[in-house]
């Protein structure tokens, strides 16, 4: 795909009908948590969307974030999205190595200055001059600063890049910090999770591709469309919580009946992520559905936040009063689900509808 070619043209060249293109847009709408009424807007925007250049920097990490993305089932919307972007630099995936690989990175910076996207996974070690993680003789800190200069936006993928993650855990021997601790003058989208859900990574890319700007973020820089609700708010076991039905051990009657795992240390009430709806492994399950509480991996310092098996230090009544008003007045949990979903989508739609083709062209 050439740099000037649009996604719509690419699909048409591959023999995909207009109806297939609309289906693709329907998948994107679901991916971005937008209502179906937004499909024509998405289609119109993608008609004109150009191929963005992407530099993916892997720093102090375990490669789990890349694994999460590349091991997602294919062919998928995710793979199609990656057909559309120009992934010019990625240590793990690129074929070339050494000076040639680094030359590509500097070339992209020069050629697409101000327009390319930088994706970062991994934390950045600062202690002892940043010697604990280097690439081609450069510290992660220097590479990040050099690459971020000409970026249109930075997407920090995974808990390490967003909050420092496991390298940052006490006693933090390498002085690991997050991308946002270093870069202050660029829009940064945080996609935490250990690892993050693949569809969330590509959903953010799809949003940028579609609307030409970053999605609305929460106070921790996370896209509201995926991190707007807590796991607890969207958990299918929520009705049991509201009924006061809790598993007390992992093998008692409550556990076998699928009751709420709050008392077994589930961090769902204080964790914001999309696991309960997007799920894992082709939508098969997520930790709570598999019988284990949420670890809270998309929240800052989750590793140092105490035992995974102690209940969060918040009383059930406090949690209930913080969620959707329908729950607080004792209405059915199902209505809370619908209400939360509708509010989120209405909010997202309101934000996106302001974008026009003119905005994308400018």
């Amino acid at each position, binding site marked *: 795909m050439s740099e000037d070619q649009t996604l719509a043209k690419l699909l048409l060249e591959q023999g995909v009908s207009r109806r297939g293109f609309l289906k693709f847009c*329907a998948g994107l709408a679901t991916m971005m948590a937008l209502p179906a009424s937004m499909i024509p807007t998405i289609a119109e925007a993608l008609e004109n969307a150009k191929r963005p250049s992407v530099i993916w920097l892997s720093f102090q990490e375990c490669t789990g974030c890349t694994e999460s993305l590349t091991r997602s089932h294919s062919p998928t919307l995710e793979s199609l999205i990656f057909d559309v972007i120009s992934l010019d630099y990625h240590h793990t995936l690129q074929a070339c190595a050494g000076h040639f690989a680094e030359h590509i990175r500097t070339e992209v910076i020069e050629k697409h200055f101000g327009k390319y996207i930088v994706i970062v996974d991994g934390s950045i070690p600062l202690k002892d001059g940043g010697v604990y993680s280097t690439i081609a003789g450069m510290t992660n800190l220097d590479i990040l600063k050099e690459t971020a200069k000409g970026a249109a936006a930075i997407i920090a993928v995974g808990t390490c890049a967003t909050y420092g993650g496991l390298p940052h855990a006490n006693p933090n021997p390498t002085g690991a910090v997050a991308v946002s601790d270093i870069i202050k003058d660029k829009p940064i989208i945080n996609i935490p999770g250990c690892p993050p859900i693949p569809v969330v990574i590509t959903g953010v890319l799809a949003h940028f591709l579609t609307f030409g700007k970053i999605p609305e973020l929460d106070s921790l820089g996370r896209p509201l469309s995926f991190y707007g609700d807590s796991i607890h708010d969207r958990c299918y076991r929520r009705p049991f919580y509201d009924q006061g039905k809790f598993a007390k051990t992992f093998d008692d009657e409550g556990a076998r009946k*699928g009751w709420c795992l709050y008392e077994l240390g589930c961090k769902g009430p204080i964790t914001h992520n999309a696991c309960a709806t997007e799920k894992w492994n082709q939508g098969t399950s997520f930790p709570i559905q598999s019988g284990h509480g949420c670890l809270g991996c998309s929240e800052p310092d989750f590793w140092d936040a105490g035992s995974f098996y102690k209940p969060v230090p918040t009383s059930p009544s406090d949690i209930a009063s913080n969620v959707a008003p329908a729950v607080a007045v004792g209405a059915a949990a*199902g209505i809370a689900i619908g209400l939360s979903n509708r509010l989120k989508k209405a909010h997202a739609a309101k934000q996106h509808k302001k974008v026009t083709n003119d905005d994308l062209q400018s």
Partner: protein
Amino acid sequence: MDGITDIPIMVKYSEVNDTEYEVTDNVRALLTEISSMLAALINDDKIDSIDIHSLPLLPGEHEAIQSILGQGEINANFNSLGSTTIYETALAGVWWVTHNNENDDCIAETIEITTIPAILESQLADIEVACEALQEQLNDWDTEQQ
């Protein structure tokens, strides 16, 4: 190994009776929402949809909703980037739309409240291509006859 279906572990949810589904709070809330949307379609021509794919439903609730809504007269399928199934439920104006990818995994599933889902309509871009192709064929035949 290509996917999770190759892993020899079967995910088994709690048993659901084939004919008698429990009308849980979630099921009732969704049906109430559909009822409101149908009223809006009648009174205000308002088209709406519910993204069933991203709702956190209890095991069995998806099947319950599908069973309660039933199947109506229209059933359509098409193949483009994977299969898509569209059918009108037993409730006129309520359509169940399922988009699968080429691995047959569901990528989007919606309940659409409309007289006909937009994706079923012939698309202008495709009509233009079709018209052009037919005209070319006619021209070719004309040339051959001359």
